[in-house]
């Protein structure tokens, strides 16, 4: 059995050090090619006519004028007469033309009649009595789920749980299949329980989830010495990837598609395109060199990815490029669900938390959305949660870095921080006292809390609420805790050692800017004892072994593990070929510093090149493959903890919040590249400042449209908003031996809660909802004075 275990610290040459990102030079020089930059021979430019209404039915479409225009090569109706449209900006007709201006003119020449229907774009607290128990589903409701791209496994569990109002006919099943229902979904429909009595109820926008109760929250709240009640919330925000979603598709022949697509999921795209395009997945090649941001919004080809291929087919197979315009990107291509809650949380006088009760609501657009995992991190002994999902017309939700966790952190950590204030306790002391409720992470959090407090200078900076004002400027500090899984995904790779000593490694993964390329090369080079630049790494193509999508912080654990396995096996196979020439057993060899030598006797060695020449005429290729999820964890692991602190300054006259300093203390098991790992944390803090202070998808209730679908009014944090940032990675004993764990999600979870808590500490009152805009801060201050 080969020994794949990570080398111990004395035997690591690269792993755990600070290595400069290998693809930086092509990025800083403008040579890196993103999907948006790809220019294929004879490429046509696509544009899309979109529905201006939040809820409407397509009545008629007249494309005749557009089809006659010179330079227009294809016109394709995406959603024709009769289609129900559930959000403004949804795709109706796509065209392809010889250049963009012509395509734009063609779009203007198309006439579409819509019948407007009533819409809801608000996610305000559900009116009393409006929420309906989640009940049996209609075929229409299932079709809506398909339209809204609800994942198949979620659909299956919903159908199994809720049942159907009536049995689906074979025609209906056929229609659902044509609309993209998977076999598992169709099977769930066939075997669903039927509830005929439910069909008479009109559908509601408000769906109540079953209440969850642990322990006896009523008794615990009634007997508690201190109870704090509050309202907290975090709005819908967008992903705002700088490279918008889109693809360039072309048909090699009638049966073979080649697509360049901006995706977090290179290997997973063909399987999703195959069914709608009615060709086998093996006939679809996907390629991507670089991606300009995904953050959870780019796992699927999306409907526009499908119709880009269809438009290409209509244009004789010519390459067609459809990249979303910025406003569309913000309207339809990604949103993080909102979450709001009225929370009651109780403790003993000494600060021991005893009970939690929450009534939460939020929206993920037409699909409604689930309840964030509250109370978060702290497993409070008595708890009850009730949640209402609002199904509305703001557009579909997507996974956004650490799905549901930033929301859970705000609802939980802000409520607990208010309880600490009511108890007159320093939050660090209060949270520290309750760390036993974090169960197996207790030790990690305790260590991190101590380090974070030191790095922030918490003791000097913390003061009881509202006592931090001088000269109209109020200063305060806040803290938050977070957790995430991050176990590595399946990620096959082929590592080849050639007889001339050159090495290549092929893997169907993608580098989102997280340092994936760099880390793969570090692991391979560390294992083979050769420099990183002696290995040619190829990623981003479906002709390479399949690797999982980059979601849920699963990439680093996946790619590092399979690379390690392939490199260890290749090294051992090389040793077997070299050993006879050095008169030793293969297990007496090692490869270090570009040499294959006898352990403990470096005088008996071959250079790497000489050693590889012993392979003979044929290269040696090893497939690296991670064990499936039923096997014990070895090189990767799951479960991390992080603590973050924020220091803010609030101008009591203007309500402007400035973040002055942020501290992130984070564990993620064995760190491969300390440099890019720290960058992930810096970036997460900055993204966190952005959503804490500025970001919100603002919907207009009258028109049902997004009011700020641009980058002026959908404001991202700029360089001027970024304070001193301190990042501390937990490494060494107690952490390294856990194996490699993902880092993409964890550090972006806590900033909103930490900053909100710092503002409450500064001004002495809670600003209930993010973003902490001046108007909200001033409103909270006025209410404090009025109270």
């Amino acid at each position, binding site marked *: 059995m080969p020994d794949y275990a990570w080398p111990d610290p004395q035997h690591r040459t690269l792993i755990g050090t600070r290595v400069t990102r290998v693809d930086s030079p092509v990025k800083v020089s*403008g040579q890196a090619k993103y999907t948006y930059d790809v220019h294929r021979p004879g490429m046509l430019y696509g544009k899309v006519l979109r529905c201006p209404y939040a809820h409407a039915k397509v009545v008629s479409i007249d494309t005749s004028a557009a089809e006659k225009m010179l330079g227009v090569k294809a016109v394709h109706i995406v959603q024709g007469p009769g289609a129900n449209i559930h959000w403004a900006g949804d795709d109706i007709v796509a065209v392809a033309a010889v250049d963009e201006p012509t395509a734009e003119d063609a779009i203007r020449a198309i006439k579409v009649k819509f019948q407007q229907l009533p819409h809801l774009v608000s996610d305000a607290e559900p009116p009393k009595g409006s929420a309906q128990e989640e009940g049996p589903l209609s075929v229409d409701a299932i079709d809506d789920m398909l339209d809204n791209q609800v994942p198949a496994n979620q659909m299956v569990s919903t159908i199994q749980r809720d049942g159907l109002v009536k049995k689906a006919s074979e025609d209906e099943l056929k229609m659902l299949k044509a609309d993209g229902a998977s076999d598992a979904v169709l099977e769930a429909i066939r075997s669903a329980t039927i509830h005929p009595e439910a069909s008479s109820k009109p559908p509601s926008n408000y769906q109540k989830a079953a209440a969850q109760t642990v322990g006896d929250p009523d008794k615990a709240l009634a007997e508690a010495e201190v109870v704090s009640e509050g309202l907290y919330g975090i709005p819908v925000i967008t992903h705002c990837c*700088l490279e918008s979603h889109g693809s360039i598709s072309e048909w090699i022949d009638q049966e073979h598609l080649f697509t360049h697509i901006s995706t977090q999921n290179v290997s997973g795209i063909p399987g999703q395109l195959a069914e709608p395009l009615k060709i086998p997945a093996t006939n679809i090649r996907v390629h991507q060199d670089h991606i300009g*941001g995904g953050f959870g919004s780019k796992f699927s080809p999306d409907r526009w990815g499908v119709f880009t291929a269809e438009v290409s087919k209509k244009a004789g197979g010519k390459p067609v490029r459809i990249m979303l315009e*910025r406003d569309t990107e913000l309207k339809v291509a990604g949103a993080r669900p909102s979450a709001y809650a009225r929370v009651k949380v109780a403790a003993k006088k000494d600060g021991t938390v005893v009970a939690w009760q929450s009534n939460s609501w939020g929206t993920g657009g037409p699909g409604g959305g689930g309840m964030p995992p509250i109370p978060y991190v702290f497993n409070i002994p008595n708890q009850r949660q009730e949640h209402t999902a609002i199904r509305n017309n703001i557009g579909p939700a997507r996974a956004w870095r650490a799905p549901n966790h930033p929301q859970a952190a705000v609802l939980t950590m802000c409520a607990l921080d208010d309880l600490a204030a009511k108890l007159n306790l320093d939050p660090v002391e209060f949270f520290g006292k309750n760390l036993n409720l974090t169960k197996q992470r207790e030790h990690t959090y305790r260590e991190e809390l101590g380090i974070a407090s030191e790095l922030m200078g918490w003791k000097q900076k913390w003061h009881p609420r509202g006592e931090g004002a001088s000269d109209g400027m109020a200063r305060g500090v806040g803290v938050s805790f977070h957790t995430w899984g991050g176990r590595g995904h399946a990620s096959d790779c082929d590592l080849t050692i050639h007889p001339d000593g050159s090495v290549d490694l092929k893997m169907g993964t993608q580098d*989102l800017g997280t340092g994936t390329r760099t880390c793969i090369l570090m692991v391979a080079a560390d294992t083979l004892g050769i420099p990183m630049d002696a290995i040619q790494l190829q990623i981003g193509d479906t002709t390479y072994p399949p690797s999982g999508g980059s979601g849920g912080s699963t990439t680093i654990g996946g790619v590092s593990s399979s690379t390690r396995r392939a490199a260890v096996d290749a090294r051992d196979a090389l040793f077997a070929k070299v050993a006879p020439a050095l008169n030793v057993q293969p297990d007496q060899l090692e490869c270090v510093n570009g040499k294959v030598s006898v352990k403990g006797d470096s005088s008996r060695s071959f250079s790497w090149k000489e050693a590889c020449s012993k392979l003979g005429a044929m290269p040696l290729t090893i497939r690296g493959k991670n064990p499936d999820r039923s096997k014990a964890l070895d090189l990767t692991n799951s479960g991390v903890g992080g603590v973050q602190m924020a220091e803010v300054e609030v101008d009591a006259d203007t309500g402007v919040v400035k973040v002055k300093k942020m501290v992130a203390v984070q564990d993620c098991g064995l760190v491969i590249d300390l440099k890019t790992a720290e*960058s992930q944390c*810096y970036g997460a*803090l900055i993204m966190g400042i952005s959503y804490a202070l500025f970001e919100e998808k603002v919907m207009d209730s009258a028109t049902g449209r997004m009011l700020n679908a641009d980058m002026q009014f959908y404001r991202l*944090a700029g*360089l001027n908003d970024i304070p001193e940032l301190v990042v501390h990675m937990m490494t060494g004993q107690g952490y390294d031996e856990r194996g490699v764990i993902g880092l993409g999600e964890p550090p972006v979870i806590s900033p909103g809660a930490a900053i909100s808590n710092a503002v409450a500490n500064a001004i002495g009152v809670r600003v209930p909802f993010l973003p902490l805009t001046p108007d909200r801060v001033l409103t909270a201050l006025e209410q404090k004075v009025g109270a």
Partner: protein
Amino acid sequence: MHEDDENPKIPNDNSESSGVSRRDFLKISGISVAVPLVAGPKMVMAAGQEVPVYGPGKVPMEFAINGKDYKANLEPRVTLLDALRDQFELTGAKRVCDRAECGACTVLVDNKTVYSCSVLAIEAQHKPITTVESLMQDGKLHPVQAAFVENDASQCGFCTPGFVVSCKAFLDKHPHPTPEVIRRGLSGNLCRCGTYDGIRKAIAQVAQKGA
């Protein structure tokens, strides 16, 4: 507009611009002129003087980009950014907001930073244009680029070329900036991954070493 359009033969007047200010253009728009579907300027009287009106068809244009001459037939409504990217394959400048909000398309025209998404190609003719592609000399990164690499100032990298050009121009103008000047001077570019910390360190490093 179409592949088979005839090439217009009207030479450009080589002036600094088309000579039409935005104000004049608005006045012209108000004048009812039947613009033929052939390219080249039509002379119209506006604001008391004769001014050329181009388009709406394609017009031959000439550019001086990174010290080289480029030619293309483009509609007057095409932006400098789209000309660079779609005609000349200079894709370092990125199209992100397409309305002068994010800075990802930053290039130098006449040695000044501009948002190339909001400059018409026709207006940028015959002026020296510098894009990120020219900063590397003989395979060697510009000091600003090298500092970006060393300080890990890019993640996905989509905003990076715009930032690099902005930083170069900024440091040319402010060789020894204070942190405050850096914060203000570079607030015209936006990043989504959150690379500002690395960018800040990169600029400070170049400022200290001297570019």
